[in-house]
């Protein structure tokens, strides 16, 4: 006889859902605090220091937003693919290929007015990033090839390819032996607004755009249907191959755009490190946002605070970066675990059959 009975929740009020989520976050912080204490640091000092480091001053806040921008744009790209249950874990490679496309324009095209130049770079980035996502999408649609491993492998090929360019044919002759691609001219660098490059405007605009696309357009609806059930989609007469390919072009295009933003505004050149793990982190943020574009915005900002706070405590409290990684992991474990209690009801069975719900 099972002592604990688990059943699917049918009716969960918004308020209750919020309470469970808040409890999960609090528990995760508690656990992270415990680990920090075990490692020999004082959690009561660490957490406030992280928050201070992320939003305490204008410059730190800007740093946090700089980290949130690529995370938001990439998460939106991942979201479009995940909605369709296409496990695109190739964001990292798509970012790099996008950066490569943008850099090719930036290094080879001259004499255009700045807005046109930037637009051309963005389009090139979306195309190259899109192509990098199109390849696995094509094979998935036509032959049913597993996309998880395919996209993952393409990450590494992109990394090696960009490294090859950076150390070989694209190495700047002026870099005195350093493996560095030439710095972009001023007309290939995104302008700033309120002290931060306009990537933040682009990110906000894309949040609204993707939200509208998924929830209020025919194509967006088709993506969701294919994700729910390919049978239903086929029965409804949708062209599943076309839906897969179009949404992956969009997904890769958005990741590619992240590459353009990072190359143009942050690095001001092509560098193999510019993807900075955002392609992987975005999978987590997109998932935590329950694949909702508006929620992506908030989850990514929260995550950026965690990232920037983690960087700050390295300097302010000499806490190694690894601790921040572990804390990230622990917090995520708890939030992932809490999803269960949103979907299922746990009741004590047996003689407690009539007992109240536990969660």
């Amino acid at each position, binding site marked *: 006889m099972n002592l604990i009975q688990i059943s699917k929740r049918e009716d969960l009020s918004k308020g209750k859902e919020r309470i469970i989520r808040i409890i999960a976050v609090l528990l995760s912080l508690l656990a992270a605090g415990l680990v920090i204490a075990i490692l020999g640091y004082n959690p009561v000092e660490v957490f406030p220091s992280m928050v201070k480091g992320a939003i305490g001053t204008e410059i730190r806040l800007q740093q946090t937003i700089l980290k949130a921008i690529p995370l938001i744009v990439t998460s939106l790209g991942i979201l479009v693919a995940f909605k369709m249950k296409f496990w695109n874990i190739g964001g990292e490679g798509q970012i790099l290929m996008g950066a490569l496309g943008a850099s090719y324009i930036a290094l080879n095209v001259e004499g255009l007015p700045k807005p046109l130049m930037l637009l051309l770079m963005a389009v090139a980035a979306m195309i190259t990033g899109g192509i990098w996502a199109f390849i696995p999408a094509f094979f998935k649609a036509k*032959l049913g090839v*597993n996309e998880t491993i395919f996209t*993952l492998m393409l990450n590494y090929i992109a990394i090696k390819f960009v490294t090859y360019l950076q150390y070989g044919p694209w190495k700047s002759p002026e870099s005195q032996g350093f493996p560095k691609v030439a710095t972009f001219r001023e007309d290939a660098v995104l302008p700033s607004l309120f002290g931060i490059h306009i990537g933040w405007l682009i990110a906000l605009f894309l949040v609204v755009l993707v939200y509208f696309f998924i929830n209020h357009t025919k194509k967006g609806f088709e993506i969701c249907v294919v994700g729910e059930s390919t049978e239903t989609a086929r029965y409804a007469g949708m062209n599943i191959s076309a839906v897969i390919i179009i949404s992956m072009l969009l997904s890769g295009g958005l990741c590619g755009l992240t590459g353009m933003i990072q190359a143009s505004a942050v690095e001001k050149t092509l560098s193999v490190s510019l993807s900075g793990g955002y392609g992987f982190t975005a999978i987590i943020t997109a998932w935590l946002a329950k694949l909702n574009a508006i929620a992506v915005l908030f989850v990514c900002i929260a995550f950026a605070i965690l990232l920037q706070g983690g960087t700050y405590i390295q300097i302010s409290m000499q806490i190694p970066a690894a601790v921040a990684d572990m804390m990230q992991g622990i917090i995520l474990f708890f939030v992932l675990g809490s999803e269960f209690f949103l979907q299922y009801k746990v009741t004590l069975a047996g003689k407690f059959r009539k007992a109240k719900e536990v969660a």
Partner: protein
Amino acid sequence: MEGFLAAAVVASTPLLFATLGEIITEKAGHLNLGVEGLMLMGAIMGFVAGYETGNPLLGLMGAVLAGAAGALIFAFLTVSLRANQVVTGLTLTIFGTGFASFMGKNYVGLPVPVSIKEAFTPYPIPLLSDIPLIGPVFFEQDLFLYGSYLAVILGTLYLYKTRSGLNLRAVGESSAAADASGVNVTLYKYTHICAGGALCGLGGAYMSLSMMAVWQENVVAGRGWIAVALVIFASWNPIKALIGALLFGGLSILGFRLQSMGIHVSQYWVDMLPYAATIVIIILSSRKNKKENQPPANLGNAYFREER
């Protein structure tokens, strides 16, 4: 040539341990993308335990426990709490990377103690090592490496010749059917995910204790991801995993070899080969529809008894 092949066998060993671990995990129906993290956890705990005690067996024990413990987190979240396996696995990698880097921060650059170095020096197997070519390549290696052969043999026997191996495959193919026939699905999933994690841990420890024999940050360097791909290459078969690991191990050192022979190929292009080869393999394996080459039917899906 012999030298190159013997080096390829060494390079393939961490891949082989991890691939076997992931095969067992996936046979239970769970896709654990945290292999990289598990290998790192095994690598550091194996190193710390070995370094502090000087005892090679305790080093191995540390790696096994660390890998199993990491996998236990994954098992709890994905089996009991039915969290998304892709996301949980990625999180495990983030956690494991941080864990290894933190635990190892005082050990960076330190070599393994002499007692362990001696325990893991090449030990030619009598008779077998006298076979031309095959002998020096496969049977003049260290004991830890021989353990990977043992794991292949035991893994094959277990999966295909024992009752519990059959049950395990049933769980991966159809948890509901296995459950109906009286198999404790949850128990099978937990034990095999943890056993898989332990093997990944051993793969990491092989790098830190024997192959490198010194602690360096991020010693695993992406091999965990190759192992995930190798599982598909091997179509979930331990013997094919051995072949795949050898091939990938060879490719990973080919660039240096070619350069020392005076053939100038950019290392970056050679580095792409294992990944490109994996892509070719998964495309090819999707074309042939042989039943035994397919992934476990329930891979990636959580099992919920009440939803049968």
